[in-house]
């Protein structure tokens, strides 16, 4: 049944659900089908992403000139906090695992669903509860939090804004993340189809598996930390606030013990998707499969040991600073290895650079810049200068947006035909990729220069000498808005008007390409064949597939 020949025309998961109600919203929001849950996440996450982008546009507009332009300082501070919280907790952390992990993890290992479908639905509900709490805080007296997404104490204990709501929201979102992690770990261990040993799993599964472990192990720490601030704020118990006898640096430690690993929750799943796309469009096996798989696990575990590189200027002892700087450089290596392996996978491939592959090329370029500028921040002498400046803002946008965000788009274009059974206009999609690259560099590259020249971050106002660079960046933000509109519009248009997609439009060999587009309720009409090795394209040769 492999290779794109249609399975017996059964019902797709759109036509057959798990709920009593056959159609309407209830058949979605109470569905335990991992694919429907994936789509619920898709709609919610993309909506929040768009809200985050709109807020960012306001931030950038305010920064077009020094002094007050469109909002006052107080509003500005709330805006960047909201932008950060939405992008981190509602978009990029859940992002790829919640949408594409949910949809494709069971299919890629030949399972009917995840191990705990109801828990899976609960995670989405928790996600929505957290999101709604965050949004509610906008309209309560006190207004939304103005602390930055890091909620540093003592400011977060003192401010009059609605910090508790934001913290509670983040706390609940954490549980959603833990449950998804638990579900994925168990699913990978228990529900692999017969014949699929660990080393036959697609690299996407390895990445999701490593990520799930981080979610399970690291997230409780942030949960407890946020709870401690709530206790401190509500009952005046001294934990982090020195006037009550607490220690503000302790907060920073606890915060980053979670939030650094969280960076890998953002990027590891993206790395998994990259391996899939490069293999499919190069029609060959991933160079150094085991190395790529193990580097995911290495990143997941060594990633716990570098948190204090966010605190080099907080008054760490010299010894601590040296140790954390050294470990930071070491943890850069597995990421570098992955990049080399990906490029090597193109060597002697048979490359058809379609839209998803183009997104991946953009990813490799932007993510390399993000990673390499991370070296500057890991090095002590330079970090003391650049910490908390726009250099850091540029760096993390390159990693999170240029890295994980780009791959969210790549995954969208790679799996769109499978998820919706429709094809999109590839010409427009390609234009979107080029525009994205140009807008991205215009928007964020000036920020490296701003930072090196001493412009601190979280600044409502700035010195006149920085204006030129800020103006360029703001223009980039408008270009980015146009790009995102075009890309999203193109996909929405395809949903309604797109041609019917074949089962295997790209000639992929992982199991999702052996079922129909879109898949049936329990994913396969017939049990799929597990290939001898994860990326074995040999039986594809000569078979006609969707590529031109």
């Amino acid at each position, binding site marked *: 049944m492999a290779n794109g020949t249609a399975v017996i025309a059964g019902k797709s998961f759109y036509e057959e659900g798990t709920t009593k109600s056959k159609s309407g919203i209830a058949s979605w929001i109470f569905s335990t089908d991992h694919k429907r849950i994936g789509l619920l996440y898709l709609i919610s996450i993309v909506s929040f992403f768009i809200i985050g982008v709109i807020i960012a546009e306001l931030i950038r507009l305010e920064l077009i000139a020094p002094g007050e332009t469109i909002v006052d*300082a107080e509003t500005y501070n709330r805006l960047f906090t909201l932008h950060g919280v939405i992008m981190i907790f509602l978009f990029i952390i859940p992002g790829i695992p919640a949408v594409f992990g949910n949809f494709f993890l069971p299919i890629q290992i030949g399972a009917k669903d995840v191990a705990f479908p109801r828990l899976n639905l609960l995670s989405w509900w928790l996600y929505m509860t957290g999101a709604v709490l965050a949004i509610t805080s906008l309209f309560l007296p006190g207004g939304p939090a103005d602390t930055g997404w890091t909620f540093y104490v003592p400011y977060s204990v003192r401010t009059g804004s609605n910090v508790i709501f934001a913290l509670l929201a983040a706390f609940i979102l954490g549980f959603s993340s833990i449950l998804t992690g638990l579900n994925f770990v168990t699913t990978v261990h228990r529900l692999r189809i017969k014949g699929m040993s660990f080393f036959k799993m697609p690299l996407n599964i390895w990445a999701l598996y490593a990520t799930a472990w981080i979610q399970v192990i690291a997230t409780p720490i942030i949960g407890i930390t946020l709870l401690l601030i709530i206790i401190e704020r509500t009952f005046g118990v001294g934990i982090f606030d020195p006037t009550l006898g607490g220690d503000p640096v302790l907060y920073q430690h606890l915060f980053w013990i979670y939030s650094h690993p969280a960076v890998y929750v953002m990027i590891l799943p993206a790395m998994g998707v990259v391996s899939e796309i490069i293999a499919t469009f190069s029609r060959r096996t991933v160079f150094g499969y085991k190395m790529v798989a193990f580097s995911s696990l290495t990143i997941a575990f060594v990633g716990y040991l570098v948190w204090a590189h966010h605190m080099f200027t907080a008054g760490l002892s010299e010894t601590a600073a040296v140790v954390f700087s050294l470990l930071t450089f070491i943890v850069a290596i597995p990421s570098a290895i992955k990049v080399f392996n990906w490029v090597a996978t*193109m060597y*002697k491939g048979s490359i058809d650079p379609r839209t998803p592959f183009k997104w991946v090329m953009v990813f490799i370029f932007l993510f390399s810049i993000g990673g390499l500028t991370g*070296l500057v921040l890991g090095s002590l002498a330079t970090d003391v200068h650049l910490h908390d400046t726009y250099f850091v803002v540029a760096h993390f946008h390159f990693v999170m947006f240029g890295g994980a965000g780009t791959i969210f788009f790549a995954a969208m274009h790679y799996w769109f035909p499978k998820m919706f059974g429709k094809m999109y206009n590839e010409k427009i999609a390609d234009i979107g990729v080029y525009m994205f690259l140009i807008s991205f560099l215009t928007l964020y590259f000036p920020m490296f220069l701003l930072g090196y020249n001493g412009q601190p971050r979280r600044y409502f106002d700035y*010195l006149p000498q920085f204006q030129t660079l800020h103006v360029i960046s703001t223009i980039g933000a408008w270009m980015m808005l146009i790009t995102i509109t075009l890309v999203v519009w193109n996909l929405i248009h395809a949903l309604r008007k797109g041609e019917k997609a074949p089962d295997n439009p790209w000639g992929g060999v992982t199991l999702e390409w052996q079922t129909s587009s879109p898949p049936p309720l329990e994913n396969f009409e017939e049990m799929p064949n597990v290939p001898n090795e994860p990326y074995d394209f040999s039986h594809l040769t000569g078979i006609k597939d969707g590529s031109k």
Partner: protein
Amino acid sequence: MLYLEVTSHAEKVDSVMLYITVISLIFLIGITATMLYFVYKYNRKRNPEAKNIHGNFWLEFVWIVIPTILVLTMFYYGYVGYKDIKADPGEDALTVRAVAQMWKWEFVYENGKKSDTLYVPSGKPVRLLLVSLDVNHSLYIPAYRVKQDVVLGTTNKLIIYPEKTGDYDIACAEYCGLKHSMMYTKLRVVDENNFNDWYAKK
């Protein structure tokens, strides 16, 4: 702007920056060019059959070892540039308490003199003792390439070595609320005599 180097420490930081940036650029260009070349050379139009290559031990070994060595050198230079500003200059340094509060700085000298501008003599190390009255702040002198957080409840230390006379910006680099972006003041480096005159004045 800031590119000029007004202290030897600033020069050192810039050279570490240059070192890392040059190596990074070589990698970035190398990776990007190789990728573009492969996509051209092995395009399906030119190369309809892929060759499966599972890996190559020596190649992978090399590209683990070389980057590891390179990042270790980066680590080392970064550390050296950091160590020299951490060492305490001892007796002959001028000690000044820098008191931060929302959203202004005050500098208190050993003779009790107070100022909202940081006056220092050129050629003499200055030990800044950083204290906060409310939330965290961070004393940042971009021209000197140094900053140190001002943490409520602890006294952090920042040592600077003023050389060229002139005025330099001091900014707050740790978010501290409403007017965080306006918490600017000046570091004013004057020569020894001028400083002594100023210091003696009530």
